C-alpha cells in the first residue's frame, strides 16, 4: 500500500478518431497524497475537467492506469466505479450540486441513507460551524446565496469522509471576495479531514491557498509551483502566480 490516495500513471484520453480526433489528455502522471491540496490551472479546453473526471472515476482513460486508494479503477465497470466514488470520492462542481428539494441538513442525511461511515454528529456540527453554515440547516438551496451554496456543497462533499476531494471550478460562479473565502474554507476543511484535494480553477489568484500548482496546456500537465517545501520551487516559475488573469480561458 501507498500513502498516495490518487495515482495516475501515463494516463491519456483521446476523443473521437481520424479527422475529428481530439487528444484531450497527453501522457499524464499525477500522484496526490492525503492532506495535500493541489490546484490545476490552465485555459479553457486544455483538458482540466477531463483529467479531473478520469481521476474521479467518472470516465475511463484511453490509456494508462488510475488508482484510487490503491484500487485500480481503470479495470472496473460503471457499477463498481460508482461504489468507489461513493466510498472514496467527493465532488464539488462549478454550480451547485445540491438537490433542490432537500434542506441543507437533508442533503447530508441523504448520504446516510446510501452509505455508512459518514461523519458523526459532533464532527458534522464542527464542519458546518467551520464553514459558517450551521444556521442554514433548515433552508433549501433556492434560499441560499451562491457562496452559501458552495459552502454547503463543500460540507456535502466532505461529509462522507472522502479520501479524494475533487473540485471543478468551485468558485467560478462567485465574485472574487466570496471566491477567496470559499477557497480558504475548502482548503482548511480538506486539510482538517485529511483528504487529498484537487482544485481546478482558471483563477490564478486562488492558488495562494494550495500546496502545489499544476498548469495544464493542450493536454499536457506541468508542475508550476510546489509550496509544500519538500521540493524546491522551479526557478522562474513562481512569478506566474503573480501574473494574474491572462490565463483565464473562460
Amino acid at each position, binding site marked *: 500500500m501507498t500513502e498516495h490516495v490518487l495515482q495516475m500513471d501515463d494516463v491519456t484520453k483521446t476523443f473521437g478518431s481520424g479527422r475529428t480526433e481530439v487528444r484531450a489528455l497527453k501522457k499524464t502522471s499525477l500522484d496526490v497524497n492525503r492532506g495535500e491540496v493541489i490546484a490545476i490551472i490552465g485555459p479553457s479546453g486544455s483538458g482540466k475537467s477531463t483529467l479531473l473526471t478520469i481521476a474521479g472515476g467518472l470516465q475511463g482513460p484511453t490509456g494508462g492506469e488510475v488508482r484510487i486508494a490503491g484500487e485500480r479503477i481503470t479495470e472496473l465497470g460503471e457499477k463498481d466505479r460508482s461504489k468507489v466514488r461513493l466510498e472514496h470520492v467527493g465532488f464539488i462542481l462549478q454550480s451547485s450540486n445540491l438537490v433542490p428539494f432537500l434542506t441543507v441538513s437533508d442533503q447530508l442525511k*441523504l448520504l446516510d441513507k446510501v452509505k455508512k461511515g459518514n461523519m458523526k454528529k459532533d464532527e458534522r456540527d464542527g464542519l458546518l460551524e467551520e464553514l459558517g453554515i450551521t444556521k442554514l440547516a433548515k433552508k433549501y438551496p433556492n434560499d441560499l446565496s451562491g457562496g452559501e451554496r458552495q459552502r454547503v456543497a463543500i460540507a456535502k462533499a466532505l461529509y462522507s469522509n472522502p479520501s479524494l476531494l475533487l473540485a471543478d471550478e468551485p468558485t467560478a460562479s462567485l465574485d472574487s471576495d466570496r471566491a477567496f473565502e470559499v477557497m480558504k474554507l475548502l482548503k482548511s476543511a480538506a486539510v482538517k479531514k485529511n483528504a487529498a484535494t484537487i482544485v481546478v480553477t482558471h483563477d490564478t489568484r486562488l492558488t495562494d491557498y494550495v500546496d502545489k500548482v499544476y498548469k495544464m496546456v493542450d493536454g499536457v500537465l506541468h508542475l508550476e509551483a510546489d509550496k509544500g517545501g519538500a521540493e524546491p520551487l522551479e526557478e522562474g516559475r513562481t512569478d506566474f502566480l503573480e501574473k494574474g488573469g491572462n490565463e483565464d480561458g473562460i
Partner: protein
Amino acid sequence: MFLAWREIRQNKLRFALVTAVLLLVSYLVFFLSGLASGLAGLNREAVDKWQADGIYLTDESDKSLTQSMMEADLADEVEADEAAVLAQTNLIADNGDVKSGVALFGIRPDEFIMPEPTEGNGFSEEFEVIASDSLKEEGFSIGDELDLSGSEETLTITGFTDEARFNAAPVLYMNLDDFEKVRPGAAALAQQDEIAGQEEQSGMVNAIVVRGAQPGDVPEDLEYMESETFIENLPGYTEQNLTLTFMIYFLFAISAAVVAIFLYVLTVQKISMFGVMKAQGISSAYLSRSVIAQTFILAVIGVLIGFGLTVLTGQFLPAAVPVSFDYGMMAIYGAVLIVVAILGALVSVWTIVKIDPLEAISG
C-alpha cells in the same frame, strides 16, 4: 422513501396533478365496475337468488330459456337433490297507471325457487303474483290488478320480493297451474287441445332448475348446464359485460400511459440532478426505488380518493342507475391500477439508469 416523500412535499402541485389523474381514472374504473356489476345483477339476480347449481333445458333450445319447452313430468326423471320446474314468458303488465315489461315465472309453491315475500304475502288464490320490489319504484303496489298483453286474464300483486330481476325485466312469480291460462296464445292452445281431444295439457314448462345435480344421466332431449353457463347465454349478457370490461382494460392502459408520460417529463427535468447524485456514487437502483416509491404513494392516494368518491357518488344516484358496488372487485381493480402506474414509472427508471453522470457534471 426519503427522497420520494421530501420531493412530493416540496413540489405539491406537480404531484397533486399526477394524483388527480390517477384519481379520475380510478373513479371512472370503479364506476364502470359498479355499472358492470349493476347491469349484470339486473340480468341475473333472480337466478342467483335461487342458489341453484344448474338448469335443464331442451337440447334443441340452444341454451335459450324461451325456446325450451318440455313436459313438467321430466322433473321426476332428472337426478338431483332438489328440482323445481320453471315456466317463463315475457309480457307487458299494466296496472292502469303504468306499464312495465315483466318476466312472468310460473312455479310450484312447494319447490325451492319459490321466493319469500319481503313485503305482503305469497300467492294463494288464483292469478295472484309475488312481484319484484323494483316494480314499487315504477309505481306498482300491493293489490294492483295487472292487465296483461296477449291475455284476457288479470293478475293481482299480493306481495313483493327482493332480488327478482331476470334479463333486465322485473319478475312476477305465480303458480304454475294458473300460468298455463295466461301464457300468450293459451286460448289458442286450449282450443287446439280440445280439437285434438287431449286432456293433459297443463304440464309444459321451460326449464327444470336443480340443486345438488348429478347430471351423469341426462334425460333424453334435455341438456344440463351450470347456472353460470345459463346466465352467460342470456340475450345480451355476455356482450354487455365484455363491453364494460374492455372499457376498464382500456382505462388501465390509458392510466399506464398517462403516468408514464407524466413521470417521464418530471424525470427528464431532473436528469442533471440525478446525474450529480450518480457522480457522487448514489446508485441508479436507489434513485429508481425512489421514483417507484413516489409512484406507489401517489397511486395509493389517488386510488383511495377515487374509491371514496365512487362510494359517495353511489349514495346520491337515482335508483334507476343500475350501479352496485362489488367491493372485492373494486379492491382488485384498485390494486391493478397501482401496479399499472408502477409499470408506467418503469420508463423513468430506464431513463435514470441510462443517465451518464459525466454529462451532468460537465454540463
